[in-house]
């Protein structure tokens, strides 16, 4: 009896913790959605469950001539596609070299990657700002893309290298016996087999520009170059145009697609991150 009692109490405790977490997690998200349906513009007087709800902020974002929302979407897509393609290409080349070849500087290179993972590009923001200013890439999407691609190399190269390491060497060695060259092995054996991890790298680098706020903030100056994150931030931050409900609407429209893709993909990322560790 007492054992059964203990069992029940434990279950109550566990489900209780989970329910508390559900409330804490879902409340802010639902609150944002409710807010985006409020007809007013400011935080004051807005309710989570509005009396007379409307989609007018969503309509405004897409149709009002003053709204740059679509332009920001376009900028973000340009940056996202270029950064994603660039990062995937560079990363798979580097990872292939580090996984399959032994060359001078390989070990130090691996250590350098590990070290550079720790230093966010942001730490050099003083320098990035001054340098981009000097070469005329400040306030340009190209400058932003270059920094995303370069910054993505260390961490992602590690991830992909780890995956390449799990592909049996016999496969590419037998292909070499049959006379396949270096690039042929890369394109016909390694890359097709590493599709899952490459997809993850591509998608995460695609999503980064949607989520990142600070690099665009440093690099982009004029509103027509803004990415979504930066533009939306200015909805809340601009001193005389505090438009929280509009911000909420714009955010919901980014958060939903990003979250869905993310939830579908996160286990591949986790798998990649822990693969080296769980073998032992």
């Amino acid at each position, binding site marked *: 009896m007492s054992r059964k009692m203990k069992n029940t109490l434990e279950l109550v405790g566990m489900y209780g*913790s*989970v329910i508390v977490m559900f409330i*804490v*997690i*879902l409340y*802010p*998200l639902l*609150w*944002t959605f409710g807010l985006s349906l409020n007809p007013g513009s400011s*935080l*004051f007087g807005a309710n*989570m469950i509005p009396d007379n709800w409307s989609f007018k902020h969503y309509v405004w974002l897409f149709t009002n001539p003053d709204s740059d929302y679509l332009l920001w979407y376009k900028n973000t897509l340009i940056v996202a596609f270029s950064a994603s393609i660039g990062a995937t290409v560079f*990363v798979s*080349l*580097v990872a292939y*070299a*580090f*996984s399959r*070849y*032994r*060359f001078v500087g390989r070990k130090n*290179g*691996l250590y350098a990657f*590990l070290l550079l*993972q*720790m*230093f966010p*590009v942001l*730490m*050099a923001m*003083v*320098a990035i*700002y*001054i340098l981009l200013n*000097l070469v005329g890439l400040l306030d340009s999407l190209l400058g932003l893309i270059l920094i995303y691609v*370069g*910054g993505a*190399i260390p961490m992602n*190269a590690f991830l992909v*290298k780890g995956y390449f390491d799990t592909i049996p060497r016999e496969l590419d060695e037998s292909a070499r016996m049959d006379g396949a060259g*270096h690039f042929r092995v890369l394109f016909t054996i390694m890359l097709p087999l590493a599709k899952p991890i490459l997809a993850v790298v591509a998608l995460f680098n695609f999503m980064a520009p949607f*989520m*990142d*706020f*600070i690099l665009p903030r*440093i690099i982009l100056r004029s509103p027509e170059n803004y990415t979504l*994150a930066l533009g939306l*931030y200015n909805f809340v931050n601009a001193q005389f145009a505090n438009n*929280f409900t509009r911000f909420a609407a714009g*955010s919901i429209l*980014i*958060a939903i697609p*990003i*979250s869905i893709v993310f*939830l579908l993909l996160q*286990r591949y990322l*986790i798998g990649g*991150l*822990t693969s080296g560790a769980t073998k*032992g």
Partner: protein
Amino acid sequence: MASSKSREHNVKLATILSLIPGLGQLYNKRYIKGSIFLIISLAFSIVFYDILNIGYWGLFTLGTIPTVDDSRVLLSQGIIALILTSFALTFYIANLVDANRDAQKIKDGFKRGNLRETIRDAWDTAFPYVLTGPGLVLLVFVVIFPLLFMAFLAFTNYTLMNSPPKNLLEWVGFENFKSLLTVPIWRNTFFSVLAWTLIWTFVATTLQIGLAMYLAVIVNDSRMRFKRLIRTVLILPWAVPGFVTILIFSALFNDNFGAINRDILMPLFGSGIPWLSDPFWAKVALIAIQIWLGFPFVFALFTGVLQSISSEWYEAADMDGASRFQKFRNITFPHLMFATAPLLILQYAQNFNNFNIIYLFNQGGPAVKNQNAGGTDILISWVYDLTFESSQFSIAAAISLILGLIVAVFAFFQFRKTASFKEEGEM
């Protein structure tokens, strides 16, 4: 079958000759390689002579004529000169080693194959460099170059007052670091910001790992149902873009009309808490938000590891009559830690430099007397303010350098933890 001629081949001579890159290779009768080396080194000295010359001159003087010489340009040319030099030195040493090795081979009677095989050999050796080359160049210019530039800037006197090109910068040695430690306002700010940064890193990260571990263990319990649904919801905060949630929390915590004060605290206790205007409560709010944002990633990691622990461990422990706590302490916990330690250290490092949350929540505010950073500013957000609000570039760079040193400590631990299993990839 070494012929007498090959035995006379002089290894020393080959190495000495290759002091001028290419000559040694020519002596080794590797004509194509030798001429390529010769051409590369000639081209390098001709093309880059000016850059190196101006670069080093600029690096030492930072310019002599105001408005004509831009110290920033000179400094970056100087760094480019340094990077080029290190590339050149690497090539040079490789060239010496190569000439020496080839000469040794010839002396030992090694016969080269025909031209085609030689080219193929060269291609095989060069291939990994061809692969890594483009990535390396990008990495050098986008990541390493700015980091170096920042490091150099820390030893100049770059502020708004004497900003180039109107003025010249000067090397001031450790002056910036000295004033951080001696000028009262800088010293006060520096130490209070540093203390809060360390507390923030330790408390927020440890709590987020603790919560993640608790939740991962209970959700993994065999009696729990709806596991998939629960896991999906628990990962949700990680999936929603961070800048959105931080701004939303900033609104929720708003002193006057935020929902937390207006809808929860006021009706229950009759008064709200000054979340944004009181440094202490702002810090509490920040830590709470960071736990909300950060635990799902660790939770996902732990869940992945828990599912991979073999059930035999637990069966054996049951046989021995181990209590649940003993099982957790001796089986679950070590497994979790062994598999994720490097990633957990990375979590600490990331929180240490977690600019987004500090800046978006309250821009480092509220303002505090006797210091020029806000009450919740951590080092990196203070650096941001110094750079973009008050243009104190060189002090900002000096603080960044200190940041870098602290991160290096994290990196050291990371190496020690990672080396154990990353080494398996070596040879």
